[in-house]
C-alpha cells in the first residue's frame, strides 16, 4: 500500500541556521532516506524550493491563469514529500514520525487505479 508523506514546515524556518547546523540537518535527511531505501519502503521523494518560487496554475474557460505563490498563503507550506510503499497505516505513521522535519507530516493513502485497456 502506497502512502504520500507530505511535509509541511514553517516558511524560512532554517534561514538563520549556521552552515554546520544546515549540514547536520542535511545529513539527517540523507540518513532517513537511506533507511527508507534499505527497508524497501522508498518509492520516491523530493525536497522543494521555497514557496516564493511557486506558481499556481488554473485553467478557466480555456484560459490559463497563473498566480505567483502556492495554493494558499499559510504559515506552513509543503516543503517536500516521500512516497512510500508499506503494509498499513501503522507502518506509514511510524515512518512519518521518523522524518527529521521540524514541521508536521500529513499521511495520505494513494488511491490506486486499474487503467482501462487502451487508456
Amino acid at each position, binding site marked *: *500500500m502506497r502512502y504520500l508523506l507530505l511535509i509541511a514546515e514553517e516558511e524560512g524556518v532554517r534561514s538563520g541556521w549556521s552552515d554546520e547546523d544546515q549540514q547536520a540537518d542535511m545529513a539527517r535527511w540523507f540518513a532517513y532516506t537511506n533507511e527508507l531505501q534499505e527497508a524497501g519502503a522508498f518509492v520516491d521523494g523530493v525536497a522543494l524550493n521555497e514557496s516564493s518560487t511557486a506558481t499556481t496554475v488554473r485553467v478557466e474557460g480555456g484560459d490559463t491563469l497563473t498566480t505567483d505563490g502556492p495554493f494558499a498563503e499559510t504559515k506552513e507550506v509543503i516543503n517536500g514529500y516521500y512516497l512510500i510503499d508499506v*503494509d498499513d497505516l*501503522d507502518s506509514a*505513521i511510524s515512518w512519518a514520525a521518523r522524518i527529521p522535519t521540524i514541521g508536521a507530516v500529513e499521511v495520505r*493513502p494513494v488511491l*490506486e487505479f*486499474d487503467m482501462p485497456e487502451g487508456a
Partner: protein
Amino acid sequence: MPREPAGWLLAVARRRAIDRLRRAGTEWRKAPLLVVPEASEPAAPVPEDIPDERLRLLCTACHPALSREAQVALTLRVVGGLTTTEIARAFLVSEATMGQRISRAKRKIRDAAIPYTVPDADELPPRLAGVRAVIYLIFTEGHTASTGARLQRVELQYEAIRLATLLYDRLPTDAENAGLLALLLLTAARSPARWRRGRPVPLAEQDRGLWNADHVARGRALVAEQMSRPVVGPYLVQAAIAAVHAEAPSYAATDWRRIVGLYDVLIDATQDPVARLNRAVARMEQGDVAMALSDVEALAGTLAGFSHFHAAHGEILARLDRTADAAIALDIAIELTDNEPLRRQLVGRRAQL
C-alpha cells in the same frame, strides 16, 4: 466507458484496495463489521466467547488516526453491538449524523489500511491509553449526560464496564486496565443511589445501602490487589479514591486525610485542575476550609467556565459564612450548567443559604 468516470474509477480503486488487503493477509475477512458499509446492517456483533477478536476490534476502533468522536461511536457500534440509532440517541445527535460518523470511520479504516491487529508490545502502552480514554468517555457519557435531562444512561455504563472487563481480562498485567475497571465498578456501584424522585442525590446524601455491593466488592478487590505496585497510574488512583468512599460507613465518616493524600498522588501524575478542585473539596471536608478556599481561588483562571468550579467555590464560601459571596458563586454555577437535574440541585442549595 460509464457515464460518470470519476465515480466508476473510485469504485474500481476501492475494490482494488480491498483485494490488496485480502492478499496481504491482514485478516480483513475476519473484520466484517469494520469493512461492511453501514447501509448493509444489521451485522451480528462478534460473540463474547471470542475475546481476542473483540480486543482486536477494540484496538482498531480506537486507532489514533480516527477522531475521538469516531472512536467512541465505532467502539459502541462494532464492539458493543449497539445500533446506530441507539448510539445517536445516547450522544444526542441525529441518526444521520451518527451514521455518517460511523461510515466515515469505517471508510478510513479500509482506505487508509488501518491494520486490524492488537499493536506490538512496544506500541501497546500508548495505544491502550487511547482505548481506556474511549471507554472512560463512554462511561462518563452514561454517568452524567453533558446536556439534557437524562442524568444516567445505564446502558452506556454497562457497555463501558464490559469493555473495561475485556481489556483487563486480556491484558491484566497493565495496572491501569485494572484501575479503569475498578474505577468504573466503584462509580457505577453508586448509580442506584444517585437519583431520587427526579433529582440527583449528591454523594454526601446518598443512601449507601443502595450501592451495588457486588460492584463495590469487585472494585475494592482490584484496588487492594494493584495498589502495592511501585508506580500507580491515574485510573488506579481515582479508583483508590472511590474505594475510600466505598469503605466509609457514611459521608461524614470518610477518611478525608487519605483522600487528600491520594489526590496529591493524582495531581503529581496529571497536573489535572479538576483533581485540584476535588482535593480542595476534600480539604474542606477535612476541616481545612481556609486552605480549600485558597486552593480553589488559585484555579479561577483555569476553571472559570466550569459549573462545578463555582459550585465548589460557593460551598466553601458558605462554610466560611460568607453567604453573599456564596450566593454569587452558586448563581454562576447555575448559569453555567446545561444539565437540568444538576441545575435544580444547585438552585436548591442556593435557596438554603
